[in-house]
């Protein structure tokens, strides 16, 4: 009797469901589900940026899943929270490779997380397209699965050094970094180029301190540099900038794209007014065709896109295209992960919001834009109004065995 009742309830329920679904929608996913995972910090001090990446990918899937659904597959987003921590990112990676429906990963935010996590993706041929990772080793290891749609730190650090030396006309600098592959990496590239240009680096300090920077600030005051470069991310840098200004440090600040969040202004307020940062992701407003994206994003999530949202949208759109091509090549069946990775690598002249992407042989875009932005207001709501001081389009250095060796790959 009980069985009969359950059956009846099920029948009624499915009838109801059928009544709700308009007749015009394509046939329900007969061939299974294709999942795209995101990995970015959804909690912690960098959650704002990580959430922006997840939302960008989500919007892309919602808007662009049509062609794949028409081929008979359901498309889903599976967001993972890597907490900006390498161990969590790797644990997530090990978990997500076991789901055969996941064919691509969009992420991460932090290079220090992406590099170890992508070792796992590599073993399972799972393609990763990063919207934000700038450390050279993301692609310099020469894996088939690793890609990015943004620029690189070796170029970015050099751009910052040239801007400091040639345009800010400073001859001495104090360099601080956060001891992560991202922060330390970009700081070292800055230092290298700055010294090549003839500048002098008065100090090169790594710190994981997030609260009390007094000893460091006093040491800086002791050598009195003309510029302070912070290779790191806004949640730490903001506190430092604020305390440095409060203690009377007058030198201008400069930083990489880790500074790119209104949170920086929220933490540091007036202390960051007048500072510059370089970035690989300009504010969405500067890209042609981004207006629709910004409007859609606002309508969908009720807030402005974060700095890497548009890049995440592009990365996802590009992956969806590649999956579609791979399905067609597989004769309408679900493609293998390797086939998807190969299709992603073969991307040519993909028209995204932020760039026209053609991948080179290691997964870098053949040309990337680099920007220098000035912060003009300590009010977080006016972050979008920070003016662009400079735009450059540069190619990455050629992949040499030395670059590969620098990433620990022989």
């Amino acid at each position, binding site marked *: 009797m009980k069985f009969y009742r359950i059956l009846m309830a099920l029948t009624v329920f499915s009838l109801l469901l059928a009544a709700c679904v308009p007749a015009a929608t394509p046939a329900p996913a007969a061939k299974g589900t294709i999942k795209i995972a995101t990995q970015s910090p959804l909690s912690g001090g960098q959650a704002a940026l990580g959430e922006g990446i997840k939302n960008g990918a989500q919007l892309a899937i919602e808007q662009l899943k049509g062609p794949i659904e028409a081929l008979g597959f359901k498309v889903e987003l599976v967001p993972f929270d890597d907490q900006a921590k390498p161990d969590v990112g790797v644990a997530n990676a090990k978990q997500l490779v076991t789901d055969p429906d996941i064919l691509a990963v969009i992420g991460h935010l932090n290079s220090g997380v992406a590099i170890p996590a992508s070792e796992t993706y590599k073993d399972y041929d799972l393609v990763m397209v990063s919207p934000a990772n700038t450390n050279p080793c993301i692609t310099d290891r020469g894996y088939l699965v690793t890609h990015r749609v943004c620029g690189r730190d070796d170029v970015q650090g050099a751009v910052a050094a040239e801007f400091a030396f040639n345009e800010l006309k400073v001859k001495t600098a104090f360099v601080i970094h956060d001891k992560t592959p991202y922060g330390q990496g970009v700081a070292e590239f800055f230092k290298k180029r700055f010294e090549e240009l003839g500048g002098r680096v008065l100090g090169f*300090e790594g710190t994981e301190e997030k609260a*009390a920077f*007094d*000893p460091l600030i*006093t040491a800086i*005051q002791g050598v009195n540099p003309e510029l302070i470069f912070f290779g790191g991310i806004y*949640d730490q840098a903001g506190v430092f900038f604020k305390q440095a200004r409060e203690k009377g440090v007058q030198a201008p600040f400069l930083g990489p794209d880790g500074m790119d969040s209104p949170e920086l202004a929220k933490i540091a307020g007036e202390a960051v007014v007048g500072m510059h940062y370089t970035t690989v992701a300009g504010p969405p407003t500067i890209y042609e065709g981004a207006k629709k994206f910004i409007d859609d994003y606002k309508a969908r999530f009720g807030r402005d896109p974060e700095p890497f949202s548009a890049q995440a949208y592009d990365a996802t759109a590009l992956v969806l295209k590649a999956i579609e091509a791979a399905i067609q090549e597989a004769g309408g069946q679900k493609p293998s992960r390797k086939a998807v990775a190969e299709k992603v690598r073969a991307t040519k002249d993909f028209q995204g919001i932020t760039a026209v992407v053609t991948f080179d042989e290691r997964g870098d875009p053949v040309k990337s834009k680099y920007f220098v932005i000035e912060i003009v207001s300590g009010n977080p709501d006016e972050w979008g109004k920070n003016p662009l001081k400079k735009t450059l389009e540069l190619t990455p250095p050629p992949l040499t065995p030395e670059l590969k060796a620098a990433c620990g790959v022989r």
Partner: protein
Amino acid sequence: MRKRLSESLLYQALVVPLIRLFVFVAISLLVIGSTILLLAALFNRPVAGGTTLLQFVIRTLPQVAIDGLVIGFLYAMIALGYTMVYGVLQFINFAHGEIFMVGAFIGVEIMLALAIPSTAPLMLIMAGTLLAVVAAMMGSGLLAVTVERIAYRPLRGAPRLVPLISAIGVSFFLQDAVRAIEGLLNNAFYRNYPSFPVLNQQIPIASLQVAGEPVQMQIQAKVLFIIIASLLMLTGLNFVVNATRLGRAIRAVAQDRPTAALMGVNVDRIIMLTFLIGGALGGATGVLYGIRVGRIDPYLGFIPGIKAFTAAVLGGIGNITGAMLGGIVLGVLEGFAGAYLSQFTGGAFGAEYKDIFAFLILILILMFRPTGLLGEQVGQKA
């Protein structure tokens, strides 16, 4: 105790601790500062910035000392919470760092709710801050008592490791509880203390010439405020512990719990009050810490908690004066290591190694004085 010292209760409870603190500060600074100067003179060489090592040290020494002292005072106040609880229960309350963190959050919520304009007169800002400190003291004190009642009292009499594990559990629970609450309320679990230009301004103390080097000494207004607040609290605590009936009861329980109970001391009540006082101090410190660093998150209690615990051990755990001394020594050591390590080692070891260096010194001290700087009585307890 000789007669003339104990002539006046007030003298003994208020003036003596202040003098003692002053002596500690002076000795710590003298010993560490002159060691640094000596080292700088011995290994003098040109450093980055166009000066020599000695010039660099002379120029920055006073400022580094002040910064180190402030950190030291904060450590000292947290360390008091560890040491008092250890005194009465012989147990390390590892959740104390989180009590401190909760205080910082109560304070920031009060300050943000008050919404004092950043250009408000100093008196108004002070009043608001005072309110935040008092609220944090009450909140953290009550929380500490609740934690004792729920997580420690049922385990009284169990082997010592058991409440320790319970404390670690409480500390995780509190971190994530605050994270969850703040996340639900504000969609972000870190908060920024409001910033007041009046409190941020630098007050010049002195500007002199030492060996032809300009030496600037200045202190931030809010740091001055923190120092005064911590001095007040440290003397207040000394008064409570050494000059009141409650203090006598606390000392009695610390010395010998069963005998104190036989003498009519309500042991449970005294333990509760110890947690209340320790928690309140921790909460107040949380607010002061938050004001100083600006940005707080639910995990901020961990590192200061560990350092304060170390300070308590360094001073001799269970000894209130020792906790203050330990905090000051640790803070100053850390400040000096952070500012000078890089220049002294030619960039080989940067400020990032300051904790390693500070803890190395601690291990050395503890090797020669295992009971801590002032901890003679530890051996008597068992």
